[in-house]
């Protein structure tokens, strides 16, 4: 059968790359064709992942290990193999990717400059992200990790705002700085263990005995600590965790709307996913001992991210900082996971299941709401050519539907119970309450500030008397294409808020097995 289960996964990963090539080979002058074709082609991975989802939900929820698995010989000399597969943590992330990519492409239908290239890069990016979430071999993992960086760099650099050079450079250098340590650590680990296979390393590397590594003679405690910190820093930059976050507001503010949607929606999750997939399983001891560092940094991200967001007057920068605030919760959840995982049946297992569930849930939810928020900012920016909240005001009277949609999405971002954001935050708060009650109490200040900056965004934009008639005049109603982007997101947010178990059950069955 052509569509055997592993083929499904391989197709999902590589189809977008092929699609990128197809779009790239289109004639230059037909921009509409490029847009439409890119959109339709991006629906294929969505279909494939949905098929995987259905198969997984019906057959594999309770099966241990990875599904849709492929192990192929690829680089036997160094022990790297082409190993991919999914479980209940990576599958939701892939789903998020394939949902957001078509919507981002749809949101880019107003791109008239080098359209074809833009669409190709986007599809290429999708491949990289999907591959990253499915990778089960460190070399593959690293290749996809790096590969996701390049298209985004170009998206910011070419289609970005006025200060795009600085922003794209900062984004690139920041991430590369993190990657360096990651690359060295991966090489040391792989070469000394004779394999790059993540599943094997989870046993071999974790349980390696002796004082020094067999061939190189490097001290094991040293290299473990070194590798642990390189991994942590690489992923912490990506998440981003305070204080490694300053690339994010710049990158977001300068990126085109669709770039921000994907950057906040999926690329940040690469970091958090790295923690869950690699850092904690490969370094359980170190994770257990240093979980408090993560918890403290997560809390700082929540609190300072919230304050910084409140301090912004550029609407997009405000939303960008909100990502730091929200991803801080993910990090807090991961900290609880780290603390319990390494301890091997600790008293915190119950809390850790809640927190890890919450973290993955929050990743998914933040992906939806951040993408939606960036899109809404884009709707305003496209029409008004400014994001300065000081100039906004009174827009609800001229754009009632856009205003209503903005409020809905803002509330999802705020974590209003009944919408998606609350579920993750509640689970993380609940999970973290046991081991880190004090930090949770501090994090609540950040949650308070979430309210403050969201209301600032709504209030400055929609409320008050109309400040600038000229601007208000330009604020035309949302187009059909724009509605097509935002409604699927809103429906997803509402369904996840009211009935989160269709997603959480999948996550939970995998997470429960970890502890």
């Amino acid at each position, binding site marked *: 059968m052509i569509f055997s289960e592993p083929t499904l996964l391989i197709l999902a990963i590589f189809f977008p790359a092929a699609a990128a090539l197809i779009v790239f080979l289109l004639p230059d002058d037909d921009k509409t064709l490029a847009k439409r074709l890119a959109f339709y082609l991006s629906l294929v991975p969505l279909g494939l992942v949905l098929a995987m989802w259905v198969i997984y939900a019906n057959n594999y929820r309770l099966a241990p290990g990875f599904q849709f698995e492929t192990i192929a010989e690829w680089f036997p*000399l160094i022990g790297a193999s082409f190993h991919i597969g999914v479980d209940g943590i990576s599958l939701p992330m892939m789903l998020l990717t394939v949902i957001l990519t078509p919507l981002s492409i749809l949101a880019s239908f107003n791109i008239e400059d080098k359209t074809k290239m833009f669409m190709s890069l986007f599809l290429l990016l999708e491949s990289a992200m999907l591959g990253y979430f499915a990778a089960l071999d460190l070399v593959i993992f690293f290749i996809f990790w790096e590969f996701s960086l390049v298209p985004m760099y170009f998206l910011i650099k070419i289609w970005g705002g006025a200060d795009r050079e600085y922003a794209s450079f900062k984004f690139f250098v920041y991430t590369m700085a993190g990657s360096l340590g990651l690359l060295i650590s991966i090489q040391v680990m792989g070469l000394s263990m004779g394999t790059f296979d993540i599943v094997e390393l989870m046993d071999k590397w974790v349980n390696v005995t002796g004082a020094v590594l067999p061939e190189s003679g490097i001290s094991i405690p040293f290299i473990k600590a070194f590798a642990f910190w390189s991994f942590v820093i690489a992923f912490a930059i990506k998440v981003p965790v305070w204080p490694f976050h300053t690339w994010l507001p710049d990158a977001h503010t300068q990126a085109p709307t669709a770039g921000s949607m994907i950057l906040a929606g999926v690329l940040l999750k690469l970091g958090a996913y790295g923690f869950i997939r690699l850092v904690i399983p490969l370094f359980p001891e170190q994770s257990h001992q240093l979980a408090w560092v993560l918890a403290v940094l997560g809390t700082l991200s929540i609190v300072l991210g919230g*304050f910084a967001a409140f301090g912004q007057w550029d609407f997009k920068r405000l939303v960008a900082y909100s990502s730091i605030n929200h991803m801080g919760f993910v990090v807090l959840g991961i900290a609880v996971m780290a603390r319990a995982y390494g301890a091997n049946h600790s008293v915190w297992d119950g809390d850790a299941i809640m927190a890890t569930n919450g973290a993955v849930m929050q990743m998914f939810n933040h992906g939806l709401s951040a993408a939606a928020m960036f899109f809404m900012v884009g709707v305003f920016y496209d029409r008004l050519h400014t994001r300065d909240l000081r100039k906004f005001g009174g827009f609800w009277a001229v754009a009632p539907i856009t205003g209503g949609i903005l409020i809905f999405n803002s509330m999802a971002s705020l974590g*209003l119970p009944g919408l998606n954001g609350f579920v993750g935050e509640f689970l993380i708060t609940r999970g973290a309450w046991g081991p880190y*009650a004090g930090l949770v109490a501090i994090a609540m200040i950040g949650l*308070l500030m979430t309210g403050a900056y969201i209301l600032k965004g709504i209030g400055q934009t929609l409320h008050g008397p109309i400040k600038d008639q000229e601007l208000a005049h330009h604020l035309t109603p949302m187009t059909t294409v724009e509605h097509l982007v935002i409604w699927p997101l809103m429906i997803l947010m509402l369904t996840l808020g009211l009935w*989160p178990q269709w997603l959480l059950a999948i996550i939970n069955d995998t997470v429960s097995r970890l502890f």
Partner: protein
Amino acid sequence: MNEATLTTFTWLIPLFPLASFFLIFLVTRHNRTLTWMLSWAAIITSLVMGWIVAFNTFGLSELLSGGQKGWKEHVHHLVDHPVVIESSVAWLPFRPEIGSWLRMGVAVDPLTAVMLFMVPFAITMIFIYSVGYHNYGKPRGTKPGVPNHGKEEPMFTRFFGFFCLFAAAMLTLVVADNLLLLFVGWEVMGLCSYLLIGFWYGREYDDPKATPPRKASIKAFMTTRVADVVMLMGIVYFYRAFGTLNFSEAFTAEALAAVGAVTAGVIALLLFAGTVGKSAQWPLHTWLPDAMEGPTPVSAMIHAAAMVSAGVYMVVRIFPLLALGLAGSESVGLIVGGIGAITALMAATIAVAQNDVKRVLAYSTISQLGFMIAALGIGAYVAAAFHLITHAFFKALLFLGSGSIIHGMEHGAEHVHDHHTDPQDMMNMGGLKDKMPRTFITFVIGGLALAGFPFVTAGFWSKDEILADAWHQGTHGNTLGMIIFIMLCIAAFLTAFYTMRQIALTFLGQPRTPLAEHAHESNNYMTLPLLALAVFAIGFGWLGIPDTFLGTEGVFYNYYHHFVGATVEHTLHELHALVPGVHELVTLEFDPVPLIASIVVALGGLTVGYLVYGRNPLKANEPDPLIAPLGPLYTFLKNKWYWDELYDTIFVQPTIWFSETFVYEWVDKGVIDGTLHLAARSTYAMGQYVKRFEERVINDGVDAIKDAVLWLSKEFRSIQAGNIQEYALMSVLTAAAFTILLILLPRIIG
């Protein structure tokens, strides 16, 4: 009616308004008539179902068929099985050892039943009223975002949409069987409150010190959010301690005893913080008076009858936990009771010096909610729950009455084309008695109920019960009880006083402005709900006359006490056996002191109020007779004890500075980015140095190489100067080359 039907009804009660909310925004938003009809239909259906469930729980058929004896049997049964309806669905999946699934569902016990009696009824009345309030059928207003006096509200359908969502949230909160679902309703109401306070989002005042609606809405949301995030900690602590969020699972004597009194106290206080915000208790009370910026139906529904009551309802709902906490530590009672009593007294003093007709009522609401909280602080479960219901009736009545007054005044303003005189300022009113007879009569009824006019009004019976409980506690070794008793007596006196002041300033004497001169009675949409609510503002109290009133036996029967008390009686009884400090629910013996006290303060306050304001009603341009005798104290009260100014100085301004300057400018841009830029610059400088070194030292020797490089770079420049397509083509080609290399390399080497 059988249990399955009742269970279905309970599920449906919040769903009708919810469906109506979605329908209004997605379908009927351009059709005003259809919109209000749809929302009426939804809320009336909820009302009917709510009342069926409520009366079934109350045992109306038992009472009618078996008389008092038959009903007593019914209550006896209720004491053992207070939860008559319970149904839930699995909502979040977890592993068995942490309680498997988090379930969401509905439950009905006597407390829910009385709420199901009051809430949908009050909401329905306000829905009816709103159609008239927004001038349905008049020429349509053209300015969205500001009040269109005398014209049909341009955002008519939006208003009803939000109202339906609000009703759904409040009803969800009432029927919720667990703390999380309650919190969902709680927060959604917060959102509705935000949206509706800021309903006239475009409104701006000339006076820079006045709070426009949009700022009031943010203030309300943020102030309550301070409390809500603490409450969220209470919820997660609750979940962790009990392993469940379900009320009937957690509130068994065994589960409570296992958690222990100290933990219970901490959880109860964390949750109570939510109430401090939602029910506008000191020190988080400042948002509620400003919330009066919303349309008056909003004030009536959200800021009097429903949402602020939800705060008290939540504490009443978790009463077994609080009772255990009270037993565990004295400070729990001190905090809860103290906050309640301070709020009751402080808000009453402020209300005395307010001139805005709605703000007086706002402070009176804060004060009355303080009565309930104080009652809970001394463990007076039923008294608090009783005052909760009676207050909702008469306060909804008063707010709607005030809306009717303002409407009348605005009509006068339209008539004389005066748009500068404040139609809400009582100093501009006077003599409305004859202009607005229906409003007058019902407002007086509501006012007397608020003042606690003896024997007739509902407010008297519920307030009396609180005072009786406080007195009982005070005379049985609880000093706090006595302090609360005294503070509440003073507050009750002030309540009667400012109520009389309000009635006199508004209705008595001669009109003080042309607005009042030309005011006229509101339409039937508005006055009929007033009459309906007036019935309950009087009659509902008769359900709660103490059994041994005036030392009689068998004459009166306190239906309310026995019915609502059944909710926790059994749990407290068992808990008392396990944890000695926990008080059981008691039916107090008759004691004349609190009765006399409540009669004296009510009549005394009304009399003094009449002497100051009613005997010689104020004439135009006369100052308030309180200004002279009170002097600076009057200014202090008029400025609401300066809480707003204080909070602005110590919280709001520092937060803005901390966010914009400290976190963003100093930490992010200064320290973090500064370090990065420094690193980048030093790297660059080092590169320059190396470059110079090369130039000086190696330069001459490598001319040939340099030439070669120059030649090469010339060649490559043609590629670099190309456009993005070429860049991309190069990237793709390079990537392809790499890929091929990566695939082939292993083969070649291997």
